[in-house]
């Protein structure tokens, strides 16, 4: 910390008077670092005991959120630990790229396992490849004095990363899922967002007669209709226990009447011709691009939509997100909101401590603010969006969360736990929305896949409370 490496290391400046050393940091609540401006809480500089001069490696899915926020977190990491660094590579198709390295026992230290073609998390956890993040969760937070890392994260935001009670990954993006439309288009046409599904269907009729297709979805990836519509609808109609039963592979879980009702409600979109022509042939960005051209009024998505489509969004489009309506208008505000984008640390990487330490930097308040400001989405970090100008999309999402109050719906875990069931849901959803499968057939297909998983002794099972 003295003179060494002045030319290369980043210059550190303390708040208050110059010349106060690190020894005095217990007196000062926080230390501010020059480049990123992060204020490190006292005693929180290195609770996990990162060795000096550690050169660690991170490989991250680079998707809708881009890659710049990872680079920023790496800057924080390097600034908090002069001499150490985290290399940050942005990739797609994480599984293809990393599986051989895992087999060879040479995984990177920390990864973002997201996007199409990612690694099967259930298998990784089952084989003991993934670090227990317990020490990270109970370590002091980087820039929130007096709190542990775990305490600074939104309550419930990390439950999907719990495998039999052990934290195996942390979600770094807080995402609201729902139905999107263009505020300006709706104002221009005098349309109002409906409060029930019947209201939705009659609005669709109006929209259709005006020459615009009421709905589109991410065609080749029908799973968007799972988290955009089916999940919240089922919870609203039959209660959140249904998805827990689904996750726990309870026999007949998919045959719940609420499931049938919700699927029939969705199927009505196809039966009435409300889905935009050509939708099944489009990729997610292509269908979203069509929607941006106002060829369709509604599209399901999560809050990454805004950033993903930023480069081709027309000025004045004003996208906003709303919860999906169901049978009961009083439950309109209930909304799916959860954290996603799982980051995990390999137990036999070269520097697992560096991996965890990087996550502590990534989910710091400073990094969260940068994320909110520059990516337009939020991290599940308390106070992470303080003083940040939010777009209309993000404002609408936060309003939706606020309106929901205690009725924030959890997302089911089966997509991450049992890839076979998830595959079947994707295929069957496509079939349902193109009229090739009835709601009953959907249920039959998916229940069968679920039964097969339950009876396959080679698939590691997980439980959810």
């Amino acid at each position, binding site marked *: 910390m003295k003179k060494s490496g002045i030319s290369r290391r980043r210059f550190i400046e303390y708040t208050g008077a110059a010349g106060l050393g690190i020894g005095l940091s217990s007196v000062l609540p926080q230390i501010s670092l020059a480049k990123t401006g992060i204020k490190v809480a006292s005693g929180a500089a290195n609770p996990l005991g990162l060795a000096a001069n550690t050169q660690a490696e991170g490989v991250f899915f680079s998707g809708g959120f881009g890659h710049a926020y990872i680079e920023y977190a790496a800057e924080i990491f390097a600034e908090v630990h002069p001499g150490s660094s985290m290399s940050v590579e942005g990739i797609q198709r994480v599984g293809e790229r990393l599986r*051989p390295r895992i087999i060879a026992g040479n995984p990177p230290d920390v990864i973002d396992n997201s996007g199409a073609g990612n690694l099967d998390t259930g298998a990784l956890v089952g084989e003991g490849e993934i670090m227990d993040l317990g020490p990270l969760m109970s370590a002091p937070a980087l820039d929130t004095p007096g709190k542990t890392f775990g305490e600074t994260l939104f309550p419930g935001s990390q439950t999907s990363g719990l495998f039999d009670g052990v934290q195996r990954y942390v979600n770094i993006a807080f995402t609201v899922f729902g139905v999107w439309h263009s505020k300006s288009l709706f104002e221009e046409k005098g349309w109002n967002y409906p409060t029930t599904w019947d209201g939705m269907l009659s609005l669709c009729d109006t929209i259709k007669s005006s020459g615009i297709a009421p709905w589109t979805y991410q065609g080749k990836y029908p799973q968007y209709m799972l988290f955009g519509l089916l999940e919240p609808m089922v919870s609203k109609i039959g209660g959140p226990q249904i998805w827990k039963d689904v996750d726990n592979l309870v026999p007949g879980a998919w045959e719940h009447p609420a499931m049938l009702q919700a699927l029939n409600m969705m199927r009505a979109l196809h039966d009435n011709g409300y889905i935009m022509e050509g939708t099944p042939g489009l990729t997610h960005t292509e269908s979203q691009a069509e929607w941006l051209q106002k060829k369709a009024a509604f599209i399901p998505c999560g809050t990454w939509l805004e950033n993903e489509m930023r480069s081709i969004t027309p000025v004045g489009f004003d996208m906003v997100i709303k919860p999906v309506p169901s049978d009961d208008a009083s439950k309109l505000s209930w909304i799916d909101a959860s954290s996603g984008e799982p980051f995990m640390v390999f137990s036999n990487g070269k520097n697992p401590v560096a991996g965890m330490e990087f996550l502590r930097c990534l989910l710091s308040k400073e990094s969260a603010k940068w994320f909110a400001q520059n990516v337009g989405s939020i991290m599940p970090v308390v106070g992470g969006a303080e003083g940040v100008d939010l777009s209309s999309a993000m404002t609408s999402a936060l309003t939706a969360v606020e309106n929901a109050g205690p009725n924030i719906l959890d997302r089911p875990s089966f997509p991450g736990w049992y890839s076979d069931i998830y595959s079947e849901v994707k295929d069957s959803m496509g079939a349902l929305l193109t009229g090739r499968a009835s709601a009953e057939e959907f249920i039959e297909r998916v229940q069968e896949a679920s039964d097969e998983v339950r009876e396959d002794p080679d698939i590691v099972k997980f439980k959810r409370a």
Partner: protein
Amino acid sequence: MYQVSRWSAVSTQTVLIGWAVTVIFPMIWMIYSSFKTDQELFFSPWAPPVELQWDNFARAWTKAHVGDYLLNTLIVVVPALLLTLIISAMAAYVLARFEFVGRRFLFYMFLSGMLFPVFLALVPLFNLVNQLKMLNTFHGLILVYIAYSLPFTIFFLTGFFKTLPTEIEESAIMDGANPYQVFFKVMLPMASPGLISMGIFNFLGMWNQYVLPLVLISDESKYMLSQGLAFMLFKQFYENDWSALFAALTIIMVPTLIVYITFQKQIQDGITTGALKG
């Protein structure tokens, strides 16, 4: 020859022109689209570009490193190609001209390599290359390229050597030439049409190879061309920089087209003679 009616000539030309348009049009559309902005690409796909977006090419070249990928690919493909040809020619000559125990077995063993799905061997192959400390190296990739080019090249050249007349070879032996001289001084020059066509055939295969580098090269600065292209494609699912992708496709296709037009005679001759004489 026999009479061809006017009507028949016209209908022949119609079919041929129709197919030529089908082949060429998508490529022209691609080149044309590479000069547009993303907005134009999606919102007015048929309109001509409002302004030529040379910037797409700049982004493809610098940000997407198409230039680096081109260079990397050449560094690997040129030596891999030369070694493939010489090693295969030696093996094929022996398989075609000598009778020995296991000859048939060896021939079919090499032949079987053409039929197996490549990506199945990827994980064991990765482990092997890892143990040899050749991951992320150009020489490692070169050796693997050679190994996976051998089946077809040997298959082809064995057929080719069989078609060559034996008289010249026999007279060289009568003149006292040793087997090495016979091979390098007599057979190899005689086989040069086959070697050229195999050279071009393998060049194209290696140039477009995707799966092998995907697993063996993970360092982005050492990416091969197809790998870089697919990398860009998967990236566009999230970044929507389609215009740069189209520009990159154009950058890659133009040299391929030039090489192809220059050597099209050899390519086609070689492929046909070889493909038929296995």
